[in-house]
């Protein structure tokens, strides 16, 4: 959480600066919206607090107020905020409450205008905005979000929220089109963009993305800041100040605004509490963004009908905060409140990846207007939902973007063209859709297709010789996610597709499913447009405006007899309520484990993160240790100290006590802490070398089956006792053989069967393997593979001898323990009639042809799906894919997250090639190759990969390219394909000829199956930058930090010079390579060493020096880091060190002792083509 610290600092600075420009510029209406958001935010935090209720009654009256009034009210609030900001936060909260009552906006105002502009306050509103724009990434602390908006606004509250949302939207509409247009909340976001800075903050993911903000720190400040800006804007209209009047006037929901403020203010107060402890001062920096997000987009319910409410809030995702454990204490009212209203699910993960990508562009220009919005999907609002004619036009008019296509199709002769890499990491290609559809389409980070233009028939697909498939990262941490609560979730009656932006509304009462083309009725509830509080605008609902939405599910979606499939014995057919979060830790305490010393670090880490474990007051935890026996721990509340129960009968494991082994975390926290403190010492004298992993897992399964949940297993050696005992299968002499690699598959199906049982009982098993010897990961990993768990592997882990692994272990644990989690999940993937799913890749159990059973779902695992085309798609011009993930949040709510991706269908081969996504294709091929190497053999898999290149190149040559030039010609869109495939062949998972330990190979294979695309691509083809001569050209300006953007270099030793310093970004690790002749200035300024010789051999940190060079290097590193969930390690490698092999093995374009160079590879491909 603390990571983004620098951002905070910078942000504060920026604030001041920014503030002036904003005021001067004219972010008129935008400001307005922004303001509203902000204002809203703060209140939200306090949900539980009384204010809400109070506000409630008032709402109706407010709803109709004249625009001017509304603005006034806003201003007032803002004003209050302002003051409060300056003052202590607590005071603010109090003030806020009163404010709403005050209706008189103006008076407070006068003060605000003056204040805001000046930098005096820690948080001039404008300033904050700017920061957000620039920083976006940093601005949003993940934790921050959560608390504010999400907190569970009770159902009652939802109505208020809705109103709030309305306000926002209202703001928006003014700018866009007619007043009638007003949008739902979501819409409002987009509007923000116009404003530029403000807008961006709120709506744009970009802003939030950065949000990575360390966590909670900034939250309070942000809120304030936000409030300020709002106030300023509001004030402006009144005063005639800069801000355009637009904002204020148009707002429909003005009346509601007041209330909104209220709520948010409440929330803010909550957040306050949480944060206050942490860092009040810094607060300003991070918060702003959050506030923006918080503004909930929609209010569906309307004031009157609480029952029908759909409160959709396009909230930022601070899921963590909501669901995650960041604010354990602050959350207090938690359970009850949450249950009532969970509308806001935002996942604000600290490290949001998205933000960054999108961010760069936006960041670059300070002018807020364009960037964020464009990318964010919300712009649509401005236009009312396309009516039929428009829509058909949109469908038909896919013509667009010929230029892009031409560019993507430029033939490139790989044998001649040497520098193929783009200067920046490759972005996902944009599907060739009409602009409206493009805007609402699902983010490529969540949902990506290998061919962004779907071939019309299987014949055409075969001709193209490219795989068709999807890469999914469904539970990714999102910055911004509309959450919808409504009684009826609108779905197609025939195929059960959730309504999405790509359906067609035939008229007001009917919609046509875009997957099966059935015409459905629009239910009455859906007719209601919360924004305008009028009937007849179903196409303005958030479900229809966002490709990614989350529903709070009703009881229809509870877990039923899922267990039947795996376990015949239980035939109950009753629904059970959502399970509480349950965590069981299974720890290896054999001699080997004690030697490695992991136990202490695990206990420390868990102790630290105990409050961050996602969950609510029902959260249950348990511990189990094992060597040759199994030890249970009785942590029942009331005991003076934990009781250890030893079961030595490992052939027939039983549970010694039924209800006291899994205990309520809240009630038994002291005992848990006791146990964690004493555990490391308890076994320090252990001499037992046997390991009964199998029985321990069986015991864990029995312990967890009543509830389901997550089992975390730590294992340090080969299991040798009881069921599931394994023998060593690896022959070290064969590690580097060129012949087939044996034993990639499991030796026993014990772990697989147990995993299926676990999956049936909704238990996910995560495996941490810390071992220096062969542990047969191929067999053990099955326990996680089929129960949708995740696998972590730390080869040669030792707490003294291997500090690098230790640090990685600790960092991973921090992330692992506090990351969001979904229980008892299933994911269904539906696609347009004619397409069908061929194969799934990832960790799960396939329950049906399109249904995955995921006992646990975590935000870091991704899935791949191979598709095939069964029927011709000729009768439609669009193909859609919908992934619906139904899960139980750690707060015990059933939720459905729906992603919908829409792609054009083409009938020309050249169009297919123009839309090919080379990264996605590489990842899908990697997954297929892994499967192949397990079912067939490694050499088969390697041949298949080479053949993929050969086939593709020949297909292109014979079908598309009319140039009869010699050489290896591929379209520009695919020019990196051979490099990527070659890199793939040199990966640990697939390489031959190089000594590779079997476990490491198997682990690399597991990684391929579960890592999201960006991470995978960095592992396959790392990014190489030169650091010692970075220029500021094209640098990003985030906040006051300049993030240089060095060019990507080809992974070849010819690009590495002795007088340089190079950064290699491998995803999970950074290598900083220092050349022998690297100038001393760089070494001194960045590494803090006097010269090359004095660099310590195992340096793994970049010191925080105050030199400009150091700052820029660290800014770059932090920026890269912010994109990923798990923080990466840093290794400084000297030119002369023996470790330089580890660096040069990533130079995949060079020849190694066992593999060919890039050029040789191309020649080999060409040779095979001519055969």
């Amino acid at each position: 959480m603390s990571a983004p610290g620098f951002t905070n600092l910078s942000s504060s600075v920026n604030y001041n600066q920014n503030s002036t420009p904003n005021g001067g510029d004219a972010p008129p209406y935008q400001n307005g919206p922004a303001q509203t958001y902000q204002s809203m935010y703060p209140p939200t935090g306090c949900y539980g607090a009384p204010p809400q209720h109070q506000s409630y009654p008032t709402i109706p009256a407010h709803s109709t107020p004249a625009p001017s009034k509304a603005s006034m009210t806003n201003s007032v609030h803002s004003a209050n905020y302002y003051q409060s900001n300056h003052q202590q936060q607590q005071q603010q909260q109090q003030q806020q409450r009163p404010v709403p009552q005050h209706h008189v906006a103006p008076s407070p105002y006068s003060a605000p205008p003056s204040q805001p502009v000046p930098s005096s306050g820690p948080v001039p509103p404008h300033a904050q905005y700017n920061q957000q724009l620039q920083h976006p990434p940093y601005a949003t602390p993940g934790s921050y979000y959560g608390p504010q908006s999400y907190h569970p606004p009770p159902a009652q509250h939802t109505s208020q929220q809705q109103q709030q949302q309305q306000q926002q939207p209202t703001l928006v509409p003014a700018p866009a089109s007619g007043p009638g247009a007003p949008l739902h909340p979501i819409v409002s976001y987009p509007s923000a963009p116009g404003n530029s800075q403000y807008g961006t903050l709120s709506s744009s993911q970009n802003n939030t993305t950065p949000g990575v903000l360390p966590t909670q720190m900034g939250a309070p400040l942000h809120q304030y800041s936000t409030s300020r800006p709002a106030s300023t804007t509001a004030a402006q209209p009144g005063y005639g100040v800069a801000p355009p009047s637009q904002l204020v006037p148009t707002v429909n929901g003005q009346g509601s605004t007041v209330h909104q403020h209220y709520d948010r203010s409440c929330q803010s107060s909550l957040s306050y509490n949480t944060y206050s402890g942490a860092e009040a001062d810094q607060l300003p920096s991070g918060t702003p963004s959050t506030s923006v997000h918080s503004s909930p987009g929609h209010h569906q319910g309307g004031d009157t009908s609480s029952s029908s409410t759909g409160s959709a809030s396009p909230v930022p995702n601070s899921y963590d905060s909501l669901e995650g454990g960041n604010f354990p204490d602050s959350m207090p009212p938690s359970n009850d409140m949450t249950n009532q209203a969970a509308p806001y699910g935002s996942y604000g993960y600290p490290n949001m990846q998205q933000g960054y990508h999108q961010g760069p562009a936006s960041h670059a220009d300070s002018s807020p207007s364009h960037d964020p919005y464009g990318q964010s999907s919300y712009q649509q609002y401005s236009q009312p939902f396309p009516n039929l004619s428009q829509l058909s036009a949109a469908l038909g008019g896919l013509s667009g973007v010929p230029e892009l296509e031409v560019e993507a199709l430029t033939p490139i002769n790989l044998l001649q063209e040497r520098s193929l890499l783009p200067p920046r990491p490759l972005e996902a290609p944009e599907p060739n859709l009409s602009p409206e559809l493009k805007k609402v389409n699902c983010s490529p980070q969540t949902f990506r297709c290998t061919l962004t233009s779907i071939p019309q028939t299987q014949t055409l697909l075969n001709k193209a010789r490219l795989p068709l498939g999807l890469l999914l990262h469904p539970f990714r941490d999102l910055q911004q996610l509309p959450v919808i609560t409504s009684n009826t979730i609108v779905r197609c009656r025939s195929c059960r597709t959730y309504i999405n932006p790509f359906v067609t509304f035939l008229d007001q009462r009917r919609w046509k499913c875009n997957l099966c083309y059935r015409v459905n009725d629009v239910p009455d509830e859906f007719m209601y447009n919360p924004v305008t509080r009028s009937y007849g605008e179903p196409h303005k609902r958030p479900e229809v405006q966002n490709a990614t939405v989350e529903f709070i599910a009703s009881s229809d979606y509870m877990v039923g007899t899922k267990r039947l499939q795996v376990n015949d014995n239980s035939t109950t057919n009753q629904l059970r309520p959502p399970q509480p979060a349950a965590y069981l830790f299974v720890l290896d305490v054999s001699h080997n484990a004690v030697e490695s010393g992991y136990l202490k670090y695990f206990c420390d880490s868990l102790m630290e993160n105990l409050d961050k474990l996602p969950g609510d007051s029902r959260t249950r935890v348990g511990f189990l240790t094992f060597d040759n026996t199994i030890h249970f721990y009785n942590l029942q509340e009331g005991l003076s100290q934990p009781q250890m129960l030893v079961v030595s009968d490992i052939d027939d494991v039983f549970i010694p006590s039924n209800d006291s082994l899994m205990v309520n975390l809240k009630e038994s926290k002291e005992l848990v802490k006791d146990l964690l403190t004493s555990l490391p010492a308890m076994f320090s004298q252990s001499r037992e070398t046997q390991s009964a992993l199998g029985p321990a897992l069986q015991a864990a399964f029995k312990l967890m089956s009543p509830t389901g949940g997550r089992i975390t297993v730590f294992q340090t050696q080969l299991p040798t006792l009881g069921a599931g005992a394994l023998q060593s299968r690896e022959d070290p002499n064969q590690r580097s053989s060129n012949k087939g690699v044996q034993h990639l598959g499991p030796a026993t199906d014990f772990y697989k069967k147990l995993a299926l049982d676990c999956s049936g009982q909704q238990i996910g098993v995560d495996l941490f393997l810390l071992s220096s010897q062969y542990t047969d990961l191929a067999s053990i990993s099955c326990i996680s593979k089929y129960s949708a768990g995740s696998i972590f592997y730390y080869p040669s882990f030792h707490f003294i001898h291997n500090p690098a692994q230790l640090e990685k272990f600790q960092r991973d644990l921090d992330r692992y323990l506090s990351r969001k989690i979904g229980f008892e999940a299933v994911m269904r993937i539906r696609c347009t009639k004619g397409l069908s799913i061929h194969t799934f890749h990832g960790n799960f159990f396939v329950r049906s042809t399109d249904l995955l059973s995921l006992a646990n779902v975590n935000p870091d695992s991704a899935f791949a799906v191979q598709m095939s085309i069964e029927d011709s798609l000729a009768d439609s011009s669009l193909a859609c894919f919908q992934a619906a993930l139904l899960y139980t949040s750690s707060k015990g709510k059933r939720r459905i997250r729906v992603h919908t991706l829409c792609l054009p269908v083409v009938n020309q081969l050249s169009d297919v090639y123009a839309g090919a996504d080379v990264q996605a294709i590489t990842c899908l091929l990697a997954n297929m190759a892994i499967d192949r190497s397990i079912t067939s053999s490694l050499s088969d898999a390697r041949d298949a990969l080479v053949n993929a290149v050969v086939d593709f190149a020949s297909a292109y040559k014979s079908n598309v390219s009319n140039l009869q030039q010699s050489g290896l010609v591929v379209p520009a869109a695919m020019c990196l394909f051979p490099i990527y495939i070659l890199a793939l062949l040199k990966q640990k998972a697939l390489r031959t000829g190089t000594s590779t330990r079997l476990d490491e190979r198997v682990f690399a294979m597991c990684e391929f199956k579960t890592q999201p695309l960006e991470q995978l691509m960095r592992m396959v083809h790392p990014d190489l930058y030169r650091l010692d001569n970075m220029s500021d050209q094209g640098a990003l300006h985030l906040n006051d930090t300049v993030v240089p953007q060095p060019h990507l270099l080809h992974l070849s030793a010819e690009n590495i010079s002795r007088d340089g310093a190079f950064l290699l970004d491998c995803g999970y690790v950074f290598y900083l390579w220092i050349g022998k002749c690297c100038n001393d200035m760089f070494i001194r300024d960045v590494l803090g060493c006097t010269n090359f010789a004095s660099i310590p051999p195992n340096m793994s940190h970049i010191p925080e020096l105050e030199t400009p060079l150091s700052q820029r290097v660290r800014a770059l590193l932090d920026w890269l880091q912010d994109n990923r969930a798990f923080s990466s390690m840093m290794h400084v490698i000297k030119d002369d060190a023996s470790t330089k092999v580890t660096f040069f093995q990533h130079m995949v374009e060079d020849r190694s002792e066992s593999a060919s160079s890039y050029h040789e590879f191309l020649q080999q491909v060409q040779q095979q083509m001519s055969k």
Partner: protein
Amino acid sequence: MAFTFAAFCYMLALLLTAALIFFAIWHIIAFDELKTDYKNPIDQCNTLNPTVEKVKKIKRVKIALKLVLPEYLIHFFFCVMFFCAAEWLTLCLNLPLLAYHVWRYMSRPVMSCPGLYDPTTIMNADILAFCQKEGWCKLAFYLLSFFYYLYG
């Protein structure tokens, strides 16, 4: 033809083949259900709550999949009978299938219990399609051999 051991073999084979045809049909239905499960259109409740019929269906599928081993054994059994009866032509006709069964069982996934199908991979479209095709082919083969035994 007098009532010889060979005639007895044919009669027995006839009956057993009828059983095998039954197995094959069940096999086909089972995989078809697996495949079309998701097309269950008016399944208003969520997929998480399989209705009673669904449960029954799942059981039926499981039973069908468990019939694989008996099927192989029955087939092996009357191959042995034909061998004893020195019905070389009939035996030759059956040998390819016998060999296929042996190969199929040898190359099954790692499992601790008898059975051919791994629940974790069965949903792979290739495997599913292969199994379905296998079912149809066997059905055809058994039908032909049924009439062969009947008139032979």
